[in-house]
């Protein structure tokens, strides 16, 4: 039994592509691994100077109030480090549950899939470059 649990709590890969970071969450995160992932994402942004962050939750079957808050917080932290965040691929069951729970995640940019998330990031970071130039 123990072995099985450990397998589902493996590491999450953080991919760096161009000026973006993509984090596909493929495992069930418990509270501590989720916190650890948050730190790792911030470290990666620091190291790469990424401008965009995509968190892909298409394989996540449960987002409870803890993970929901952590995702919102992560986006806020990334923003403070100069990166925009898009949450991609939330399942419809997860969406319905989050709304019943009362967690609206209003401040988060969201997309149906990674491809859409990339074009949202292009808009978001492109706009910022323009205002910086002015």
């Amino acid at each position: 039994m123990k072995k099985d649990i450990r397998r589902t709590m493996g590491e999450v890969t953080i991919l760096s592509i161009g000026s973006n970071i993509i984090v596909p969450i493929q495992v069930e995160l418990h509270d501590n691994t989720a916190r650890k992932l948050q730190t790792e994402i911030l470290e990666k942004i620091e190291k790469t100077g990424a401008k965009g962050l995509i968190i892909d939750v298409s394989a996540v079957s449960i987002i409870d109030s803890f993970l929901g808050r952590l995702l919102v917080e992560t986006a806020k932290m990334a923003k403070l480090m100069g990166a925009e965040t898009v949450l991609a691929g939330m399942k419809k069951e997860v969406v319905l549950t989050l709304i019943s729970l009362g967690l609206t995640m209003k401040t988060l940019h969201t997309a149906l899939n990674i491809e859409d998330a990339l074009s949202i990031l292009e808009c978001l970071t492109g706009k910022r470059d323009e205002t910086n130039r002015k």
Partner: protein
Amino acid sequence: MKPTENNKSFEVSLSSYEDIILARQKVKSLMQAMGFSLLAQTRIVTAVSELARNVVIHAGRGTMSVYEMIKTNNTKGIKCIFEDQGPGIQDIEQALKEGFSTLKSLGLGLGGAKKLCNEFHIDSAPGKGTTVSISEWLR
């Protein structure tokens, strides 16, 4: 609403974050086997996650007992009972309110869990521990 038959399926002891995941996985696979929709599974497993976390965080340890229920009209259901001997809740009504938290969290856990299931019952008093039970019926 009296179930005619309650069969205990399993019990999970809750004392760590890993136990919360185990509780979620076991409830999910039972619900899957019983034929619940993916949405019902998601709602109840999310409620299980909130309630199991409450046990671990507020009481340190406790148990989740899961029962398969059958009503006289053959409706099937699942019941999860969370029991702990923790500090208990002073004001249950306040604890169920959205945004109420003693630990700087969002305060969506207990009230949220109530919204996610068909039936919700809580019994708690300071110094007496807390028992929360949730049920969902297959329709």
